[in-house]
């Protein structure tokens, strides 16, 4: 679920292809977007340098990580974020979990963007029977609740990390397909595309040289917002026990493993929960800022 409702208002078509440098410069003028980028940078760095950064072995069940009664330890000097039910270091598991979240965020969302773009642009440009069939199929997929569909797929395929990514992609391509369809449609009716066509340019050339560059900003915005949805969906699937399987730590399955003890060991739920919230929030805020910058006709929050 992301912030904007794509069906509202006329589809907007940015008239100029974007320049990365000026976009980044304008992002820096927005405090919320800067905070978002910092959070993302921290998580990315944590994931990349996980082997160096983890203070403890994430899978080691420390003897001194449990009290004499066998209860997990709260945050303390040795284990900064405390330990989990098996005496493992929570901080180290969170850092490794960042890898899981990002891998799925990037792979699943990347796939979703590719599928969504192919379907949306093809349907919007060629229309006819192909377009109608593709869009009816998209509508059909939209009428399934995303989480339930993902649950069904995950239950059928018995997920590993990559299957989870694939499942999420199969569920999340729909929205971007709808948005790109409307934009491609209105673009392909414009005079300059008409002119290219009458000059005899082939479809592939028009799509590649003239349509795609105008869609880049929309794709960037939705790709950013989509990572937020993806991170949430992965966490939820893992929380329900059908996402990433332990012992591979993911922020969702850390909560899944420890949820029954939330009353006595709340840090085991709320620290990973905060991590999920912050990462998802960061991508949402960044995506929203990007939309404001790249697409002035479609006002986001500040309507």
């Amino acid at each position, binding site marked *: *679920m*992301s*912030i904007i409702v794509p069906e509202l208002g006329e589809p907007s078509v940015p008239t100029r292809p974007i320049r990365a440098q000026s976009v980044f410069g304008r992002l820096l003028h927005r405090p919320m977007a800067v905070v978002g980028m910092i959070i993302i940078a921290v998580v990315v760095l944590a994931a990349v340098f996980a082997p160096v950064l983890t203070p403890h072995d994430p899978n080691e069940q420390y003897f001194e990580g449990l009290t004499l009664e066998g209860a997990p330890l709260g945050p303390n000097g040795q284990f900064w974020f405390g330990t989990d039910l098996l005496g493992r270091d929570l901080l180290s598991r969170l850092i490794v979990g960042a890898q899981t979240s990002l891998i799925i965020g990037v792979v699943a969302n990347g796939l979703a963007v590719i599928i969504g773009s192919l379907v949306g642009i093809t349907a919007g440009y060629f229309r006819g029977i192909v377009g109608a069939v593709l869009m*009816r*199929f998209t*509508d*059909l*997929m939209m*009428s*399934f*609740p*995303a*989480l*339930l*569909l993902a*649950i*069904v*797929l995950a*239950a*059928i395929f018995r997920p590993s990390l990559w299957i989870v990514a694939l499942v999420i992609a199969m569920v999340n391509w729909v929205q971007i397909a709808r948005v790109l369809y409307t934009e491609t449609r209105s673009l392909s009716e414009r005079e300059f595309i008409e002119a290219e066509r009458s000059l005899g340019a082939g479809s592939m050339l028009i799509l590649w040289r003239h349509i795609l560059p105008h869609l880049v900003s929309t794709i960037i915005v939705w790709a950013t917002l989509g990572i*937020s949805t993806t991170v*949430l969906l992965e*966490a*939820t699937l893992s*929380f*329900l*026990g*059908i996402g990433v399987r332990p012992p591979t730590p993911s922020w*969702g399955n850390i*909560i899944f493993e420890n*949820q029954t003890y*939330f*009353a006595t060991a*709340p840090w085991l*739920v*709320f620290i990973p*929960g905060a991590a*999920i*919230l912050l990462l*998802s*929030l960061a991508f*949402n*805020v960044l995506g*929203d800022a990007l939309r404001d910058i790249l697409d002035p006709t479609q006002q986001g*929050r500040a*309507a």
Partner: protein
Amino acid sequence: MIGYLARRLGQAALILLGISVVTFVLLYLLPADPVRQIAGRSATAETVENIRRQLGLDLPLWEQYWRYLSNLLSGNLGRSYLQKSEVSELIAARLPASLLLMVGAIACELTIGLTMGVLAAVRRGGWVDNLLMVFSFISVSAPQFVIAILLLYVFAVKLGWFPIGGYGTFAHLVLPSLTLGLLGAGWYARMMRSTMLEVLRRDYIRTAQSKGLRGRIVLFRHAIPNAILPIVAMIGIDIGMFMSGIVVVESVFGWPGIGQLAWQAIQRVDIPIIMGVTLISACAIVIGNLVADLVAPLIDPRIKLR
């Protein structure tokens, strides 16, 4: 109007048909061997063959689908792999609890969302307006299971205001409804804010003000009713949001609805139940959208039928 109605109903029927094809594919074609899953590992070849014939899996594909569809139309959603009962009965028994939860969630999201939206629009740039921005970002970014556990921790464990979970009294309903409604509350708050801002700019509001009516009367008699109607017409669309949410919310709070049923089925890999809940949800979404589309023009004549 009649033409629009017919077209819209036809579309909905087609989508429902499409949904049945998708669930059929997921239920019978994708699993490596559904018969094995039903029969269990220790089944003899004879039992396997029997079940295959019982399920009609030896028939040609279109005939299998035809049987599946006619079963669906007569309300038969198949049998649970593990519990020896009809999926439709399991779902029917639990539907009332889920509906109650959804009603609670709608009440929460409308109360929170509309209040915040109005206050934010009236005092544009004030603290409610800023809070609304933060709130709407958090409501779409926060995982529902974390919100659920957080509410439980604060209001049930620490403050003891509400029970830890379960079903039965009004007190049981509050926290699950709040969790489920929070996402929608952010959405309604934003929608209400922007429609209110638009309404407040209208001529009839200026007329009312220049007649010398007090601000409060202008707000409650003239502005809010005009802004609220098109938004309330969208409740049907919330159903999609709820259908994903109830699996998480009901499992955390131990709420005995179809979400919990699905969650239990997930743990046991009981695919027919998960599929039944998915199918019911998809139908509810299609019908919800249809109702929203049909009700909106009745409530607000400015919306043109297309």
